[in-house]
């Protein structure tokens, strides 16, 4: 169990997360949804240890989570210049014994001997995904993983996430696009007003759209009807 206890975080004294209390079951795929600026990426950064919370704790079965247990696929990463994709991948230790670099690169259609500088945004994201799959981590965090990927790669990524889930990994996904989360997540958590307001199990996903976008839709409709 990943337990978040009384977690608070502010950027320049502006609170982003306040008194977050939630538990995430291990070995499940958790979706995190919320409107822009709701603090999803900040939450992931704290979970990964890149940011230190002002207050509160995050534990995995009662113990502080090690950074080494986490694979983080961020929304937009950057790469070292003048390295080929193969050289980049060689930096990561192969702790996932089933990992087959060449197969994965073929599936994602990545030319590994090319400089990463010549890659498109989508290709860079795929390369980052492959690099993180090389390591046998307990927790996978994917921040907006579907952005910038073509349709086939999106489908492939969904399959990869399902396979990771079968391998008993705990997965967190934040996405602006909710639809894929319905099929790959066992739980979806709604981040709103600086804390998690509700967690939904798969049989409750049909309520999500109304609850996440309810206020937003209503306000937008009113504003638009006055403006157009």
């Amino acid at each position, binding site marked *: 169990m990943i337990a978040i206890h009384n977690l608070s975080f502010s950027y320049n004294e502006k609170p982003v997360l306040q008194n977050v209390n939630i538990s995430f079951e291990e070995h499940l795929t958790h979706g995190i949804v919320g409107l822009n600026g709701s603090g999803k990426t900040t939450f992931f950064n704290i979970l990964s*240890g890149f940011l230190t919370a002002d207050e509160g704790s995050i534990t995995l079965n009662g113990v502080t989570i090690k950074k080494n247990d986490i694979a983080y696929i961020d929304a937009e990463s950057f790469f070292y210049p003048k390295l080929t994709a193969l050289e980049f991948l060689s930096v990561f230790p192969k702790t996932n014994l089933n990992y087959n670099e060449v197969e994965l690169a073929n599936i994602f259609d990545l030319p590994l001997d090319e400089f990463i500088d010549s890659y498109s945004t989508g290709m860079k994201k795929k390369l980052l995904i492959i690099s993180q799959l090389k390591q046998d981590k307990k927790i996978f965090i994917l921040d907006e993983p579907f952005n910038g990927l073509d349709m086939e790669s999106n489908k492939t990524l969904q399959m990869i996430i399902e396979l990771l889930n079968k391998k008993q990994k705990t997965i967190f996904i934040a996405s602006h696009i909710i639809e894929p989360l319905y099929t790959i997540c066992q739980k979806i958590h709604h981040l709103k007003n600086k804390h998690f307001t509700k967690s939904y199990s798969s049989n409750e996903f049909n309520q999500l759209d109304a609850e996440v976008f309810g206020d937003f839709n209503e306000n937008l409709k009113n504003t638009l009807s006055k403006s157009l």
Partner: protein
Amino acid sequence: MQLLKIRFYQLKRDLGILFSPILALASCISFFAFNHPEKVGLYVVAIIAYLFYSFHKNRGDLAFAYKHFNSAKTQIITEYQLFLLPFSVPVLFTEYWYSFFALHALVFLIPFADTTRKIQFKFLFITKCFRNDYIFISGIRKNLFVLVPLILIALALSPLKLFPLVALFIFNAVVFSFYEVNESVQMIQASNKTPKQFISSLLSSAAVKLAIVNAPVLIINTAFNFDLFLFNFYFLIYNLLMLATVIVLKYADYQYKKQGNSIQIKLIIMILGLFIPYLSPLTLIFYVQSRAEAIKNLNNYLDDRHS
């Protein structure tokens, strides 16, 4: 002059009241460097011009400026000429007064240099030589055409006094520039080391490489000019210290998702420390201070102990 307006706001925001003292300090340093008893004025011209070129080559707003600003090139030229003044005006009061014109002419040419041309040579032997050391693989690949001539010149001139050291120093300065780029946090974490181990392994691996390249030139130079033994020894130690300082400065400043780091001012002070001995202790102070900061900062990205 949109570019100057932007720079004005940046300086106002980042330096505030420190702007004038820093300007005065730059002028003083320039004046003393050009008045140095060792007559190193022309090398200082080369160093200043190189720093401007390095800034131009690495700046990320060129495409934006050319796309959105009228007469972008003129604006960039004006910007460089203005920023050069604190360094060049004091030169007029030294015996190197003519360097004022040389500096402005050299810096004037920089915006005309094609820095966008991409060399696509992979030089795969570099990958074999520096297995998994992505900093050196990337850095050497990027600067191979500068590094090879420099080391050849240094070796060829190694029996002579001073000249080989200038080439060797520029070579080392290019190696220091390898640490201007930040890697992604995933690459740091791939090391699977504690912050202390991470810094120590980077320092030792880089120091060994630099020492191996510097040693032949310095040994030959000492053999032919034994009176320079102490200076050559100091040169090697100071360069290793600079390298170590550049590395710890990078990781003291490293931030997740922040590309590049701002060590230019400290780098200038460190470079001048080689010529102006009373500035050299500053490098040691930078190192000691930044090493502690780097380890503390890396705690955000690496586990501080293994299970």
